[in-house]
């Protein structure tokens, strides 16, 4: 039986088309990283995203199509800080692809390259789904995103040194455009300083850190737990004492809770894109911030 198995395995291996290695095969865990990879890699990379803006990156299963993708990947680009802890380690373990294991050059963890917010002093399940390594939703601060881009650029070069020139010039180009955009965004966002918002989940901490926006409350009573009528009543109480400008949520979160609180309090509920693909016209990282700021400014005016 062992022989038959070996023969089958060899036969399968030989029957496969030889994949050209001119392009790096990159598996991004979330759309924001797929977008960054495209900015930095251009035509030298083949990118696929494990999740879309419609899916909660906490709650993905290690499904067959993802196993097949990780199997062929040269590099995984993920948020890290335990955001993907429910599914990524399982994918890494099941695929027999040693290039992309934790600690290898083929595994890039974005959150590792920036200062993280919300690192808890203690972790207990009664606190909900908290991440011991801090808040993983790091991409919503464009300053931190540039730091990540720098590290990712170095990673691409070390994986594909023959194209160093290509990656370096793409990174310089991206950095220039990003810095220009950053200046523009900061000017635009001036009126948002001190704005008070209610969030659905702790997705926005980095955006708020950048724009000096204050988080007044969250629709989730504890991270990862669905909201309840009792919790909404409590929030309403808080909001009558200290009003907020808006209640924000994103596509993969059920808008019902935000809309319910909006009815109770008269505070407007606003959907923000959160990531690339999360709203009309949000086709890359630049438009992600354009649209986010536009929607927040509309609330403010």
């Amino acid at each position, binding site marked *: *039986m*062992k022989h038959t*198995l070996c023969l*089958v*395995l060899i036969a*399968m291996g030989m029957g*496969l088309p030889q*994949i050209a290695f001119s392009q790096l095969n990159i598996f991004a865990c979330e759309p924001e990283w797929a977008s960054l990879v495209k900015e930095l890699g251009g035509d030298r990379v083949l990118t696929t995203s494990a*999740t*879309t803006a*419609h*899916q*909660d990156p906490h*709650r*993905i*299963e*290690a*499904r*067959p*199509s993802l*196993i*097949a993708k990780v*199997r*062929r990947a040269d590099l995984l680009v993920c948020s890290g800080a*335990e955001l993907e*802890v*429910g*599914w990524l*380690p*399982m994918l*890494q*373990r*099941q*695929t*027999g*692809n*040693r*290039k992309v*294991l*934790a*600690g290898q050059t083929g595994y890039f963890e974005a959150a590792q390259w920036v200062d993280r917010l919300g690192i808890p002093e*203690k972790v*207990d*399940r009664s606190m*909900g*789904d908290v991440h*011991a390594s801090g808040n993983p939703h790091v991409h919503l601060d464009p300053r931190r995103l540039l730091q990540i881009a720098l590290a990712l650029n170095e990673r691409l070069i070390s994986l594909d040194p023959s194209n160093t020139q290509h990656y370096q010039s793409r990174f310089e180009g991206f950095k220039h455009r990003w810095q220009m955009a950053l200046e523009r965004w900061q000017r635009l966002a001036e009126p948002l300083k001190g704005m008070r918002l209610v969030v659905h989940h702790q997705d926005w901490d980095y955006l708020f850190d950048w724009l000096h926006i204050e988080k007044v409350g969250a629709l989730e009573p504890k991270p*990862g*737990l*669905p909201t309840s009528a009792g919790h909404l009543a409590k929030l309403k109480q808080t909001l009558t004492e200290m009003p907020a400008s808006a209640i924000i949520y994103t596509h*993969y979160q*059920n808008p019902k809770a935000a809309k319910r609180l909006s009815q109770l309090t008269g505070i407007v509920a606003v959907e923000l894109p959160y990531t690339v693909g999360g709203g009309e016209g949000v086709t890359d990282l630049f438009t992600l911030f354009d649209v986010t700021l536009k929607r927040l400014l509309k609330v403010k005016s």
Partner: protein
Amino acid sequence: MNKRISIVTVLSLVLGLTPVCAVESDGFNPAISLILDGRFSVYENDTDYELPGFMLGGEAGRGDEGFHLGHNELAISANVDDMFYGKMTAVIADHEGETEVELEEAYIETLALGNGLTVKGGRFFSAIGYLNQQHPHAWGFSDAPLIYRGLFGDQLRDDGLQISWVAPTELYLKLGGEITRGERFPAGGASHDGAGANSLFAKIGGDIGESQAWQVGLSHWQADIENRTSGGHHHDGGAHEIPTYTGDSRFSGIDFVWKWAPQGNASERNLKLQGEYFIRDEAGTVSMDDGSVTPESTTYDGEQKGWYLQAVYQFIPRWRVGLRYDRLDSDNRGSDQEVLAEAGLDNEGHTPERLTLMGDYSHSEYSRVRLQYAKDDSYEDQDDILTLQYIMSLGPHGARQF
């Protein structure tokens, strides 16, 4: 942190080891998880359980009545180093008043062979079928499908070696095989110097658009069996006889899973449909071991098969409902029909079937409370079974297996 230390300590005491103190850094701690499972069941019938046409073994049965504990397990796992992953699961259960620790799983697995290859060694759940590799707390219902009960004694696991390979293709394709000891039910006797059972499996799968994912599996298992014992038929007053089987056994199976969630976002609503079919052939001798030199015996040529189909639907966050239908059939022949009947292999013209309904509520991902009703026609005395169950998990994030 305290919780962690106490779990380590409890485990250490249970296993008779010196308690180890938890390491400071979380990254180096093995993941320790504890599953708590308790039940309250109500049955209509008091008669002993049997499954006509099937020799029961392993953990097969319908469980206790009233308050009782289910499958409480403690698992420790971690990457050993950059090459190996290791996991151990201990089940702590009461058997006739004694608390027993059973080593349910204890295996290592390679991480870094590359080229899609993975080798696993130790005690593990076989990769045949779909449900078999999952722990009972991950099943959609509080008990195993009837075909799992009848053929595997609820779940097929053994000590041995597994090799598997994932193809570098767009479509998910995994092929593998196992060689195992063949001592546990449904094998027996650890023939061929303790390498008496082997299996082959293949799985393919993928996505259909953004909202659907699927997987289909094929499996085959065979063993040379020496003196496999089982519960069989109970007799009042007669000498205690243990049905014992020696011969060949092989089964083949096909399984499928299909999942749907709007735009692939399962947090609000999702549907999971799955089904499995197995057919087993056995040929050998069954004897009724009563301790004498010449126990009654018969030739035995049997075929047992069955399938189940189940659907579990989460209609709003936290709430799920499920429906399952089970059906078995058997055709067992032998030189002495009476002995076959005593061994539980005569189906008495009965086709076991069962219809199960369940509803469960999960306060968070870590806690679940379930109510289940089964109209059980798996043996002659029809039964209505009501089970209230809790399943709680402590410790790190469980892996989201497909």
